[in-house]
């Protein structure tokens, strides 16, 4: 059974559709990148997938269920695009990452320390675990939110531009933790403009510009003259060219 299936989904905030007739499917153990220029509807599609928005046409199924009334939310992990952090928030990295366990363990049980440790290790924040999040750099904060999602040990992980501003070493760790997740049978949907770090690990690339313009393995994209890793300019230029 597909972990995620999107069929003929159309959504408009006002009148003009932002996402139109989109089909997308993720099976267990698949690592898929969703790319597209700014404003092409990626975050909107993500919100539709997560059940935060409802499609005007078409159907979204998460684990075979309507995402809005999915009963086991712990199966779903999410890293939002640029989460707004309250300025005066006094909380450590560990506090935030531990919250990632709430869905899986429930609020009445203690968090699973080991899962939290693994998540911190995976993003390379073990040493900063007792630091205040508000005092960290943008990239370190972003990694905190990635760790929060990893701590829930999800079966579907959806990440909206998680590696913008994350340095090369952290990206390497990040790729490893995603690959690890995928090897255990989870599916990953990664929205990103920079696929260099993960290019080798990807099963498919989906190009979105209101509708799906390409859906296939990176090698097919390469056949179309677009490389993901080597020429950093290739993908953005090609995306620009899509009408």
């Amino acid at each position: 059974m597909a972990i995620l299936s999107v069929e003929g989904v159309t959504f408009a905030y006002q009148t003009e559709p932002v996402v139109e007739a989109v089909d997308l499917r993720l099976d267990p153990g698949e690592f898929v990148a969703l790319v597209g220029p700014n404003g092409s509807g990626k975050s909107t599609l993500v919100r539709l997938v997560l059940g935060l928005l409802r499609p005007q046409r078409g159907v979204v199924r998460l684990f075979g269920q309507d995402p809005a009334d999915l009963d086991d939310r712990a199966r779903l992990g999410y890293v939002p695009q640029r989460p707004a952090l309250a300025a005066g928030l006094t909380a450590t990295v560990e506090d935030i990452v531990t919250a990632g366990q709430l869905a899986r363990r429930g609020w009445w049980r203690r968090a699973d320390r080991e899962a939290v440790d693994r998540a911190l290790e995976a993003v390379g924040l073990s040493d900063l675990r007792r630091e205040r999040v508000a005092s960290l750099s943008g990239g370190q904060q972003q990694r905190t939110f990635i760790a929060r999602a990893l701590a829930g040990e999800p079966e579907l992980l959806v990440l909206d531009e998680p590696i913008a501003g994350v340095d090369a070493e952290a990206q390497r760790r990040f790729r490893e933790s995603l690959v690890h997740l995928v090897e255990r049978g989870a599916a990953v949907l990664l929205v990103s403009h920079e696929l260099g770090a993960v290019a080798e690990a990807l099963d498919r690339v989906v190009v979105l510009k209101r509708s799906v313009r390409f859906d296939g393995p990176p090698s097919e994209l390469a056949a179309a003259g677009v490389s993901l890793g080597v020429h950093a300019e290739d993908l953005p230029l090609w995306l620009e060219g899509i009408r």
Partner: protein
Amino acid sequence: MPLPLPWPFEREFMQLALLAGVLVGLSAPLIGTFVVQRRMSLLGDGIGHLAFTGVAVGLLLEVWPVWSALLVAVAGALGIERLRAQGRASGDLALALFFYGGIAGGVVISGKAGALDANLFAYLFGSILTVTRGELLAVAVLSGAVIAAVAIGGRLLFAVVVDEEWARVAGLPVGVLNGVLAVLTATAVVAAMRVVGILLIAALMVLPVASAQVLARSQRGTLWWASGIGVGSAVVGLVAARQWDLAPGGTIVLVALVVFLVVSQLDARRRLGVVARAVRAVRRGPVDAPDPVLAGTIHADHRHTHEPDPHAHEVHR
């Protein structure tokens, strides 16, 4: 029968006041921590104004003002939460309407009840020294509810306050939790009403939290520091009020204010110390022997020294 306690708590009214002060000193900053983190520090004020209407209604209908205040405050808090959820409370006008309505309604209704007198002042400015056993029981129940709720559900409230959209995806009952936070805020306001007064409730919810945000790093640390400072301010304020015959509500808040000023000063000194050291180091080359006091603070909290938090001094409104 008063308990055999030493001065200044040897008399029964002081013992009742002490208990009420400690309970409110605990509960107001506890819930205040979440309110401040959500950047809704005005909420305490807004709900306080609504509680004023509630008190006036109680005086008019001759029911115990604590209950009528609780009713109006809870209803109002849920109303404000609705506006916030629709993204309209930050466009302050909607929130301001609640404030003006609360005060104006309170004045008109208490005028109608012929109660614009000392009885009303006890609620406006607090009157902890005249707290009765019955009122203490109400304060205990209300504060106890707040403390218990934070102890049990604090992790959930924290997750929602940090990132509402994420919490929704994680399947947390975000709407319910926001409602709970609003109701708990109203409850804490009503509990604090007789202690520091409607006009100063928000101060007790915000000032200890502002100090705690300088002193603590973790969520848990913030809750401990905030409630510790809240209780400390209440006790010290009471003693000072007895000793020098001051208005206790205002004194308690002034103590909390002094604590905040001292704490933020310490924080600033700590940073200045580091700047001075850095300058000296640059001038002289090798760093001289570390100042023991400063070295202690550096080890205790090197975040402040290396990366000053630009928001540490913000008084959250």
